[in-house]
């Protein structure tokens, strides 16, 4: 399940934020927010997509680097919401 979430997020991030790049460029620990790949508006787009795609609700305080900086952290957030 965890790997599926990461694979989907990886594909989404590559398509939306790194057009023309291979999804493989994004590893589980690539810093998406800290390194500027996803900016503030991008974070909100990602959160909206996560809510819609996985049927979860994310709080404003969770739209933070602590939860969105890597595929691992994003998977943690999604899985914690899905119980």
């Amino acid at each position, binding site marked *: 399940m965890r790997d599926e979430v990461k694979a989907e997020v990886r594909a989404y991030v590559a*398509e*939306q*934020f*790194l*057009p*023309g*790049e291979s999804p493989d*460029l*994004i*590893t589980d620990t*690539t*810093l998406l927010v*800290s*390194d*500027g*790949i996803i*900016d*503030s*508006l991008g974070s*909100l*787009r990602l*959160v*909206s997509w996560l809510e819609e795609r996985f049927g979860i609700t*994310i*709080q*404003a*305080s969770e*739209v*933070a*680097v*602590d939860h969105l900086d890597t595929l691992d952290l994003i998977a943690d957030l999604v899985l914690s919401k899905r119980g």
Partner: protein
Amino acid sequence: MSALTQTGSERFALNAAAISVLLVIAGAAAAFVALAADYYGVGVNRCELGCGLLQSFGASQMALLALGVAATLGGSALQMRLGMHTLREALGFWLITGQVALVALIIRLYEIESRAFFELVTTLILCGFVINHHTPRPARPKVFFALGILTIVAVFAAGKPLETALLIGFALAIFWIANLNIAMRWRVLILALVLVALAAVHTGLIETSWSNIVVPLLASMFIFRLVIYLYDTHNGHGPKDLWTRLGYFFLPPNPLFPFFPVVDFATFGRTYYNQAALLIYQRGADWILRGVIHLLLYRVVYQFFTIAPEQVGTPLEFVHFVFANFALYLRISGLFHLIVGVLLLFGFNLHETHSRFYLSSGFIDFWRRINVYWKDFMQKLVFNPAYMALKKRGFGHIAAVLLAIAATFFVTWALHAYQWFWLRGVLHFSLPDFLFWALLGVFLALQTYIESKRPPAAAAAQPSLLRQGLLLGRQLCTLFVICLLWSLWGSATVADWFDLLANAGVAPLLRSNTPEAWALTVVSIGIAALALAVTLGLVPGPVQPARTPARAQQPYAHWRSAVPVGLALLLIAPQALKPRLSIDQQLAIEAVSGSRLNAYDQAAMTRGYYEELTNINRFNSPLWESLMFRPQSFQDMADWAGVRRRNDYIRYDFIPGAEFNAHGVTIRVNSFGMRDREYSLAKPPNTTRIALIGSSRAAGLGVEQEHLFETRLENALDAQAETDGRSVEILNFALPGSFTVERQLLFEERALQFSPDVVLYVSGPREDASLHIARMYRVGRTAPYPVIEDVIERAGLDRSMSLERMVALLAPYKYEVLAEVYRRIAASARANGATPVWLFLPNVQGMAAANSDDVEMQSRLAGEAGFVILNFPDVFAEHPIETTYVGAWDTDHPNAFGHSLIADALRDRLVDLHARGEIDLGLAPGAADAQR
């Protein structure tokens, strides 16, 4: 036995490690004492500008420094031997330390920011950096917190012990309340009550002696950081360790920089040593150097390239003005680089701030680059919550984003006013301020909307010449539009901004409704609209490519010190070679060495002693900083209890018999309206009378009456005359804030009736009466001399013009008016049997090269009018300026010590003049020799 041996060697290693840390601490402390000794020995062993850093160093200081460095290196070597650091790490660390030391030297040589910073805090930070690195990782937050406390103590404790204790005490109390084990709402309520109490103190509702230092600094530490702290801790983010949490509020350079980046609490904890230490340190050292370069560039712009809005008269001057005005922001970017660089030296791997903001391509890019800490703060506390709330109410992505942007910019505007209140004690709401943030918000929202309709930009396209050229065009357009908005922000009123546009000839329609005016205005609007369209992205062109993961990685290497060290040496070279350079080159170096007000701000500050200033360029102004620590009791002169307004060409004068407090001292006015003791109208027999004419420096603004140079001089000359049964009286007719024309009128009205033998006219910064003439003209007062009426006509004044514009138009005629004033005073004095003496008294800060021509001209005009000329430009030169001025908010007026210097110098010169027969003080022959 084996276990016992193991324990013993472990204990040995532990003891050796502790010894190594102690050695480093002792060594760094000794080095700090040696380097900071001059700071506390004011005027004893102080290195004046240009004399070279080490010339003031005594042998004992040098020995202590050598001992300290040796002990530190010994401790570091011991740690290497114990395996705590590898040779490569140690070498890298000391290379970076050398780089930081070089930058500290530049900061000291160029006197960057306040003296407490360049002589004390940079050394403290350098020593703290060395100690921190050699301390075991778990103990480093304690070192960082201790350094924060030490910075406050080092800067303030010697001169302001009460304020220091209160600042630390209040800060710890606020931290304690923020961490109380009660519900968040109760904590917030208690903190809000504390805030209200501090606001009452700050506004003077509750009077204290300490508020002007303690409250702004406390506010700078807490007003924003406390909000993030509460938000993050409530949501389980940020460091849990007590010392790191404390360190977050006591950030080391903060006490010297009240306008401080809003560091995010979660980021502060998350980034702590999140990469190799050397990599973080290297970046910190680079940013400190970059900050220093920004600050030096800022000084070059501030001293040589800024022009006042009223000097703008052509479109080219307008472009010059708006670009130079925006370039002043280098001060903030420099300070933020420097501050964040310091935090990196202690392992806090924070984001880069103000990353090449002048190369922004569009509003979104500008907002992301300029003050990224503020952007993050707004995003966390306003933008994200607003967006999420709107989405949950059914708004679409774009609608929610646009509304969240509007909320963000509205709150940004309100919080800037809030910050202004805590730093200055008054709320600052202005229409230009509101318009600036509103327009920036609208443009950012527009660009967001435009970009949302485009497919994502492809990354890593090969740069071509055309592509680079188009990008450069967009960057220039962005810069131009931002500069325009900045000029609006910096204007006191929207009408002033329109005046600027009209005077520059870029919007003549604001003045005249002619076809030519229409054409020029339409062309200007067209150019601005085109630049705006390009900035918004309405005109197709390249955008910055997305960042790829590969770009983010950059490993540490020793060679990375080479470029910054080379740059640092290049900056040191001019100071080292200064004695061999020409006078002009030396003057140019001096102009960027030290925090001096430029001529425009100096004039504004002089004006600010008597009236409220509204046109201070927000937080980005040395003038603003000078005024920040102004005493709470400061009032505009118009509000002084002992001053009355007049309806003639003199705006106000003292109320006879009044006694009141102004600028922190008691002013006692005698029955004739002088700030002086009582005198009889008729001159007593055997008495020599001197009538003193001047403005605030002669009236003694900020100094008690018994310490004025006038009182001291009178006592000295009178004591000298007393031996021959004579006496000397000096009648002080000086009036603070008075212009030359007012002084001449007051002289005629009051001084002559006292039958003076000598009229001593003290020349000051208000020898240019243009502002006074403009004001009087605007309110319809009749000019007292035909020359003034003539000048008004020739300058082409119109009552609808702004005062600044009128002053600019009158500027070419200022010496004509001055010559007439001098001629009238000298002629009246001589006609009444008095000898007129003209005295030039310099500012405490000394005379800038730009003023010397002006003073020479004044002196020439006074001589031609018939004055005896007295000039002692070096009266304060041998003393550090902080020992001779009233306060940091008033660096123009001498304090009691400054007045004693003037009195001594003046007594000698007057007695000399008497001995040479140029004036008659009624002293016995040979008095001058006796005095010597």
